[in-house]
C-alpha cells in the first residue's frame, strides 16, 4: 500500500432549515508520498469542504465515505483521540486568511511551543529552539523578534510563513494547503509557493493544494483534480489537464483565463450561465445547465468516469481527446 492518502466516494451534506446542501458528492483521490496534487475549482465547488471532511474538521455536517485511509490505516474506524493526534502530527494544514489564523492574545512563541509539545515530548527550551530554527527556515530574517511578538504586529505574508513554520515543525507526511496565497500579493505568493515546493522536495512530504488559480496549479502541481458543483469532473497529470482537457468545463476555464499578452480590448472566451442552486442540484451532469455541448443524456444521467489513459479520467458522456495550444 504505497499510497499515503486514499479517499473513495466521500460525500458531505449540510442539513439546514431551508433544506440540505449537497456540498460534496463521490469525491475520490489517492496521493502518493512526496507528490503535490492540486484540487482546482471555483468558489462553491466543494474543494475546501472535501479537504476539511477528510481531516474531520467539519462541524454540523453529514459525512459519508466508502474509504478514507492514511498510510494504510483506516481513518473512518479511528477513534476521535487517534484522529486528533494525526492532525498536526502526521498531517499539517494551512489556511487562506492569514489575518485570522493565529490566536490574537497569545505570543507566537507560545503557539509554536504548544504545537511541538502537543505532538512530541520535548522540553520548553528545546521546543523554543526548534521553533526559532523553523521560522528561520521559512525565510523570516528576525525569528527571535517574531517569536516575542503577537499576530497583529505581522504582515499577511509573515503570518503565513509563521503558519507554515508551525505546521512543519512536527515533520508531517502530508500538508493540506487551502488557498494559502490567495490573500497575498503576487510577489509574496511567488515566494511562499517556492518555499512550499522546496519543503516538499526536501522532506519528501506530500501536499494537497486547493486553489481556484490554474496558474499556481501549472507551476507546482504534478497531478490535478478539477471540481464543479461538489463533484470531480476531471482528474489526471497536469500535462493532460492543460494540454488535452477532456471536460468542457476544464476547457472553458482554461480559455477564460486572461494571459499576459498585451493588446487592449481582447475579449475572453466565457462560460455562460450562473452557479447551481446548492439546495437543488441538477439531475444528471452538474455542469449540464452551463455546458455548451450539452445533450439529452447529460440532463438525465450522472456521467461515469471515462478513462482517457494514463490516469486521466473525465466525467462526461461526450468525453473526447482534444489538444490545446501545447500539441
Amino acid at each position: 500500500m504505497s499510497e499515503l492518502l486514499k479517499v473513495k466516494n466521500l460525500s458531505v451534506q449540510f442539513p439546514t432549515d431551508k433544506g440540505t446542501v449537497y456540498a460534496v458528492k463521490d469525491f475520490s483521490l489517492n496521493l502518493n508520498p512526496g507528490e503535490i496534487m492540486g484540487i482546482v475549482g471555483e468558489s462553491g465547488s466543494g474543494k475546501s469542504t472535501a479537504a476539511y471532511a477528510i481531516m474531520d474538521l467539519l462541524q454540523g455536517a453529514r459525512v459519508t465515505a466508502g474509504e478514507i485511509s492514511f498510510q494504510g490505516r483506516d481513518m473512518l474506524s479511528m477513534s476521535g483521540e487517534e484522529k486528533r493526534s494525526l492532525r498536526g502530527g502526521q498531517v499539517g494544514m494551512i489556511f487562506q486568511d492569514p489575518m485570522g489564523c493565529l490566536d490574537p492574545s497569545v505570543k507566537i512563541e507560545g503557539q509554536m511551543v504548544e504545537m511541538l509539545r502537543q505532538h512530541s515530548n520535548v522540553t520548553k527550551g528545546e521546543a523554543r529552539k526548534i521553533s526559532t530554527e523553523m521560522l528561520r527556515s521559512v525565510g523570516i530574517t528576525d525569528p527571535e523578534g517574531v517569536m516575542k511578538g503577537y499576530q497583529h504586529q505581522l504582515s499577511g505574508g509573515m503570518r503565513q510563513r509563521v503558519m507554515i513554520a508551525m505546521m512543519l515543525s512536527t515533520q508531517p507526511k502530508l500538508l493540506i494547503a487551502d488557498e494559502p496565497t490567495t490573500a497575498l500579493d503576487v510577489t509574496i505568493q511567488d515566494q511562499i509557493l517556492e518555499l512550499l515546493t522546496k519543503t516538499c522536495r526536501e522532506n519528501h512530504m506530500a501536499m494537497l493544494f486547493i486553489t481556484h488559480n490554474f496558474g499556481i496549479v501549472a507551476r507546482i502541481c504534478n497531478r490535478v483534480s478539477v471540481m464543479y458543483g461538489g463533484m470531480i469532473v476531471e482528474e489526471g497529470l497536469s500535462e493532460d489537464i492543460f494540454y488535452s482537457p477532456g471536460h468542457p468545463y476544464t476547457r472553458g476555464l482554461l480559455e477564460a483565463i486572461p494571459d499576459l499578452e498585451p493588446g487592449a480590448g481582447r475579449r475572453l472566451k466565457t462560460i455562460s450561465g450562473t452557479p447551481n442552486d446548492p439546495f437543488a442540484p441538477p439531475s444528471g451532469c452538474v455542469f449540464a445547465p452551463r455546458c455548451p455541448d450539452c445533450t439529452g443524456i447529460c440532463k438525465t444521467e450522472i456521467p461515469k468516469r471515462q478513462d482517457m489513459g494514463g490516469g486521466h479520467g473525465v466525467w462526461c458522456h461526450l468525453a473526447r481527446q482534444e489538444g490545446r495550444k501545447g500539441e
Partner: protein
Amino acid sequence: MSNELLRVENLIKTYPARTSKGQPVRAVDDVSFSIEKGKTLGLVGESGSGKTTTGRAVLRLTEPDSGSIFFEGKDITKGNMRPYRRKMQIVFQSPAGSLDPSFPVWKIISEGPKAYKLLKTKREAVELSRELLLRVGLNSEDAFRYPGEFSGGQQQRIGIARALAMEPEFVVCDEPVSALDVSYQAQIVNMLIDLRQERELSYLFISHDLSVVMHLSDEIGVMYQGQLMELGSCEEIAKHPAHPYTRELLRAVPVADPRKAASRESRIIAFPEGSVNRGCPYRLRCPVAGEECGGERPSFRDLGGGHFSACIKE
C-alpha cells in the same frame, strides 16, 4: 493634448500615522498621469501601493493633500464637484459591499439620476433600471428583487448598471473583478470592453492582477508604495519593461501553462518590511539596487514614446 479627458499632476495624499511615534504615511506620493478620451489607463500595484487611494482621490471621494486634477481641461481639485459627478463614475471591488442590502435593485440603479432630479416618478425610475438591467445581461423583473438574492457576478453587473445610469464619460474601476471567479471575471471583462466601444467610455482600471489589466488597458502605470514606478503603453510594459519592479511583477504572475511555468528559481527569504523615506522606495527589494539608489528620489525619466520609468539604473 486636445482630446485629453483627465490630467492629474503631483497628487499627494497622506494618512496620520497608525502609531503616535511614527510619521504620517504617504499613501499617494507625487503621482502624475493623463488619460485621453476613449482610452483606458491601467493602474497596477500590490496592496499598500496607493492605487485605490489614487482612484478615490481622482473622484475626490478622499480629499487629496496637494496636487491638481483637471477634467476636460477644467481644474476640479477644489470647489463643488457636483456638475462633474455626472460624468465621472466608479465601480467597486466587493460585489455585496457595493450594494445597499435594504434597497431594491431599481432604487439602487436610479439613485444617481434621482439625485440630479432627472427622474420625476417611480415609474420612470423603474423603466430606466429595467432598460439598464437588460443592457448588463440581467432580466428586467430583477428590478424588484434585493441585492442579497444575486450571485457575486450578478451583483457586480448591477453596480455597473448603476454607473451607466449617469451616462458617464469616465469610469474608475477599482478592482471590479478581483473578487469574482474566473468564469464570471471573463464575463465582466468582456462587458467592460463592449461598453467602452459602445459608449466611448474611458476607464481608470485599478487592479493587482496584471493579466486582467493587459486585456483592457491602452496604457499601464505600475505603482509601488505610493509612487509611480513605470508608465507606458501596454506593448512597452509587456514586451520590454524598463523598471526592475515591473519585471518582478511580470515574472511572479503564475501562468496557466506547465511548460512555461517549469523554469523558475525564486527567492524564499522574506523582503524587509517597512517603507523607505529616502531614495528609491523599491531599493530594499531590488535585485539591481546600488548606493546611488539611496540618494535622492529617482526622477520620472522619459524613455521616449510616452514610456516613463523611475529607475536611474536603466
